[in-house]
């Protein structure tokens, strides 16, 4: 037996070795594309998966944001009222008036009523044809209007106060004043 053949394939090979080579040679690596049957084909990945993941993330974030806003709005004070609280509350005798109702009680320090409150008598909710508002909506609107007028008056007053002070103040009193735009 020529053992050199087993080392470096030199010399005459042994017939058994040669036969083994021929048998096993069929299993030698052949460079060709992998051919897999349909049964063993891997499942193709859903190419929309990334988009779905992003969409789901956005949806969750949107829902979370909406919930947060809802909770925030519920917890924030919704004081749809305006009033002057006096340390000496005075009993107010409302009288019924069908004109412009005012349920905002305003009293000065000395207990005098600045504006006598008038309460509109509402028997049944009804739709007002002129404004398409129900009586309760109209009542709410009147309250809002009262608040609005009070807020605007205060704002206007303070703006004018700032204006007057800025005009009358010495230069070192005005720390910062510049135009907008």
């Amino acid at each position: 037996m020529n053992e050199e053949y087993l080392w470096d394939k030199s010399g005459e090979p042994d017939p058994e070795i040669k036969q083994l080579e021929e048998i096993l040679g069929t299993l030698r690596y052949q460079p060709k594309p992998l051919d897999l049957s349909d049964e063993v084909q891997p499942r193709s990945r859903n190419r929309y998966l990334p988009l779905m993941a992003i969409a789901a993330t956005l949806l969750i974030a949107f829902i979370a944001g909406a919930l947060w806003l809802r909770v925030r709005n519920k917890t924030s004070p919704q004081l749809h009222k305006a009033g002057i609280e006096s340390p000496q509350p005075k009993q107010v005798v409302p009288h019924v008036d069908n004109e412009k109702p005012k349920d905002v009680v305003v009293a000065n320090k000395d207990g005098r009523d600045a504006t006598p409150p008038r309460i509109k008598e509402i028997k049944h909710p009804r739709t007002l044809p002129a404004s398409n508002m129900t009586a309760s909506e109209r009542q709410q609107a009147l309250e809002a209007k009262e608040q609005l007028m009070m807020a605007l008056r205060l704002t206007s007053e303070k703006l004018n106060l700032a204006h007057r002070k800025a005009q009358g103040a010495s230069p070192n009193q005005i720390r910062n004043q510049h135009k907008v735009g």
Partner: protein
Amino acid sequence: MKLLFHAISGFICALLVIMTTITTYAQDPRIRLAHLDYLAKKASETVDVNIDERLIQLAAKLFSDKDEDEAQIKKLVNGLKGIYVKSFEFDNENEYSSADVDSIRSQLREPAWSRLVNVTSKREGIVEVYVALNGADVVGLAVLSAEPKELTIVNIVGPVDLQKLAKLEGNLGIPDLGIQPNKPKTKNEQ
């Protein structure tokens, strides 16, 4: 590896949404006033106005278009998203603290807010006017008036015409509700 990529991309998207929400919230020209409610107990007179956009729209329906004054107010409030006022008048001085004023002032910082006027007087207190700008448009107004016996904060959210607003006082029949009864005026109103 791809799973990691998807997780990272999802996280980035969520982060963007959160940052956008936070940025939007930060640019909201509404200032928080609720923490001042405790002053109502000390105050002799309190004005608390909270009108959101829905109520403004509701109230605007009651303003007549035929009446010139009311039409002006209607035009002025049209588009506003909220009006919030807190005003406390005290019998004595030093009823509110500088921390109360600072808590408001800290919300009125740049770049969201720009200070238009700041008049400071040791005797008469301070008056500060701030506007929130979106480009050249005014999208919010805040007035902080801290006098020895009075603290007033006005916050208007939405497009505000300052000149028209300032002209309202005494011109449009806005009723004097006795918020400031006759008292010795020490202010420099000249």
